[in-house]
């Protein structure tokens, strides 16, 4: 591996991200599965970095998942998106930041399509007016939330308490980065580092002291596949894709997987559990599996957030071995507690993959 080659590509694929004043749009999946990540994101950007992130209570799903599950026509998805843009405009913002990769892909695709087919844009403008009586608008900047963390990765590094280093060996942790497919595969120029060697997560890993693992199936989809997950009969497809990735990364013995997509951490996490149940195979050392975290969770960890405030207990793969490697103190008792120490019971132990 010749790192200079990658650096050259990274230098070629940079994009401007405005410094402040963002309109923040949430992700359906992350709100449901990784609520701590969005909370952490806003806390880091607003409170630690002092940035203005505005959230409008009237924004909704972008419809991207429904669109990519082919349940709604393109025009519907575009009109929902136009409504979100209109909300941004109404709120006085022009820098649009979304928390979801599917959304990011849909927004990018929509903007590009409108650009290429103005008659379609006109049609959507009309639809928006007919349905919501809102004024059509387009953002000046469109960014994914991971772009923001990438932009401020060195600022975060300055506030870092627990770098991505194994405290016992002093060596950097081996980190696998997994990029959501819709981040840059459709429009390589819209992502940091392009489509082949995305830098958005690599930049964070390197800034925070970790070592990036580049394994053969690095670029590949986690296997969500929208309808391939939503229908139980199709889930073998999804599981098989994740399985392929783990088989490929296994020899590198990664300590951690970091993702920037809502669904990927869910699949990379839960399919490990299912593969273990079905085949008895676990990845990572000692049968614990390899934790798959969101970039906010990793940012939170290195900045010294309490792991349970980040929501790491919502992962099936046990996080404790990683915390111990990084030397992050944690209170095992608080893991399964609600507000004010309320006892929420404990999840059952899976039969194969180890839990603490």
């Amino acid at each position, binding site marked *: 591996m010749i790192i200079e080659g990658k650096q050259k590509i990274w230098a070629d694929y940079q994009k401007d991200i405005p410094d402040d004043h963002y309109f923040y749009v949430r992700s359906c999946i992350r709100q449901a599965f990784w609520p701590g990540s969005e909370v952490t994101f806003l806390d880091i950007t607003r409170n630690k970095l002092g940035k203005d992130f505005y959230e409008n209570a009237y924004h909704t799903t972008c419809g991207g998942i429904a669109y990519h599950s082919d349940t709604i026509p393109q025009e519907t998805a575009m009109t929902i998106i136009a409504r979100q843009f209109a909300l941004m405009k109404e709120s006085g913002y022009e820098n649009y930041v979304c928390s979801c990769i599917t959304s990011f892909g849909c927004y990018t695709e929509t903007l590009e399509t409108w650009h290429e087919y103005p008659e379609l844009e006109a049609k959507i403008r009309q639809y928006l007016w007919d349905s919501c009586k809102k004024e059509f608008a387009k953002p000046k900047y469109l960014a994914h939330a991971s772009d923001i963390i990438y932009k401020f990765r060195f600022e975060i590094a300055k506030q870092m308490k627990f770098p991505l280093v194994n405290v016992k060996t002093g060596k950097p942790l081996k980190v696998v980065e997994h990029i959501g497919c819709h981040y840059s595969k459709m429009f390589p120029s819209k992502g940091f580092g392009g489509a082949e060697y995305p830098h958005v997560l690599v930049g964070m890993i390197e800034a925070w002291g970790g070592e990036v693992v580049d394994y053969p199936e690095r670029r590949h989809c986690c296997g969500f596949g929208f309808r391939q997950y939503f229908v*139980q*009969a*199709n*889930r*073998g*497809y999804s*599981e*098989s894709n994740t*399985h*392929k990735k783990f088989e490929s990364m296994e020899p590198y013995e990664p300590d951690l997987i970091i993702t920037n997509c809502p669904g990927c951490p869910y699949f990379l996490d839960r399919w490990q559990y*299912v*593969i273990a*149940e*079905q*085949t008895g195979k676990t990845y990572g050392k000692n049968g614990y599996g390899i934790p798959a975290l969101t970039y906010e969770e990793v940012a939170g960890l290195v900045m010294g957030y309490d792991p349970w405030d980040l929501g790491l207990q919502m992962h099936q793969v046990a996080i404790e071995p990683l915390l111990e490697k990084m030397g992050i103190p944690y209170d095992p008792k608080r893991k399964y507690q609600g507000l004010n120490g309320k006892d929420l019971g404990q999840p059952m132990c899976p*039969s194969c993959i180890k839990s603490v």
Partner: protein
Amino acid sequence: MEFGFCLSPSSHVKMDTIDLTTFNRLKETNPDVNTCIACGSCTATCTAGNFTEMSFRQLLLMLQRGKEDEAKKMIQRCMLCGKCTLVCPRGINIRKILLDITR
């Protein structure tokens, strides 16, 4: 635990691990097998191909890609009529190769 789904086998031709015994044996007696240009003439003219999926071009590829079982199944359809040999632009002695595969 019953999940209602399971891992699917990969369709990738894994060139690193495939078994080429039959093809290599064939190559020894019929060096011609290497010279196919996949023009499809054999398939287009195939008498058995009129009724089945029989395709010599594909058969040869199956052997080269380690799908011996499929190849052996396909070759059972062949009538050995020899039209393929007559139309092959590379002059490959297809009929002989077909016969040799069944040995």
